[in-house]
């Protein structure tokens, strides 16, 4: 079964708007939650990550919100730009498991100018 569920599958946002992508997990042993950004023709690249001891982490226009009790986390992209158009993957991992990450199914973001 899918360890990390991601929604929506695709998202269209106007330039300057807020993009929100949601993920949920079941395994309470997960203790690290990164987001990856993938541009066409490239491999995914680490964007931002959070650990469950904090509820929010912000890096520039990108923010992760984390709700431990609900086992959900989300990526917010503020002031979305056409250059943010990419596929975004959430992921989760737990310690002691060969650094194996479980990925969501991906969200294709299109920011319209």
């Amino acid at each position: 079964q899918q360890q990390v569920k991601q929604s929506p599958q695709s998202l269209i946002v106007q330039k300057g708007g807020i993009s929100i992508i949601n993920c949920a997990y079941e395994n309470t042993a997960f203790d690290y939650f990164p987001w990856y950004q993938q541009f066409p023709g490239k491999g995914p690249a680490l964007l931002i990550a959070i650990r469950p001891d904090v509820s929010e982490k912000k890096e520039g226009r990108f923010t992760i919100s984390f709700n431990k009790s609900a086992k959900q986390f989300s990526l917010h992209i503020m002031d979305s730009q056409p250059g943010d158009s990419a596929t975004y993957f959430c992921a989760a991992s737990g310690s002691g498991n060969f650094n194996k990450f479980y990925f969501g199914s991906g969200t294709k973001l299109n920011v319209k100018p």
Partner: protein
Amino acid sequence: DVKVTQSSRYLVKRTGEKVFLECVQDMDHENMFWYRQDPGLGLRLIYFSYDVKMKEKGDIPEGYSVSREKKERFSLILESASTNQTSMYLCASSFRWGYTFGSGTRLTVV
């Protein structure tokens, strides 16, 4: 700058061929992974390796095998390529806080 290099960006192979996808990392990472990426299915783990000559099956190992003779190199082998193995293949090596991915190999089996 750390790198994971996949030897081919695009490959076209015939059904039944034996196919080798090569991946090299220069970061001295212990763990390496092979994923395939398909639209709507995200990244699915095929195999991973946590040490030289050590390997573990991922979620979709059928039809694939792997080889890791040296720490920096991890190869994915399609024993007898089939059309349902047409996909984007991504190699990654990992540190505790994430993966570094290669640029991918887009394989088409005809």
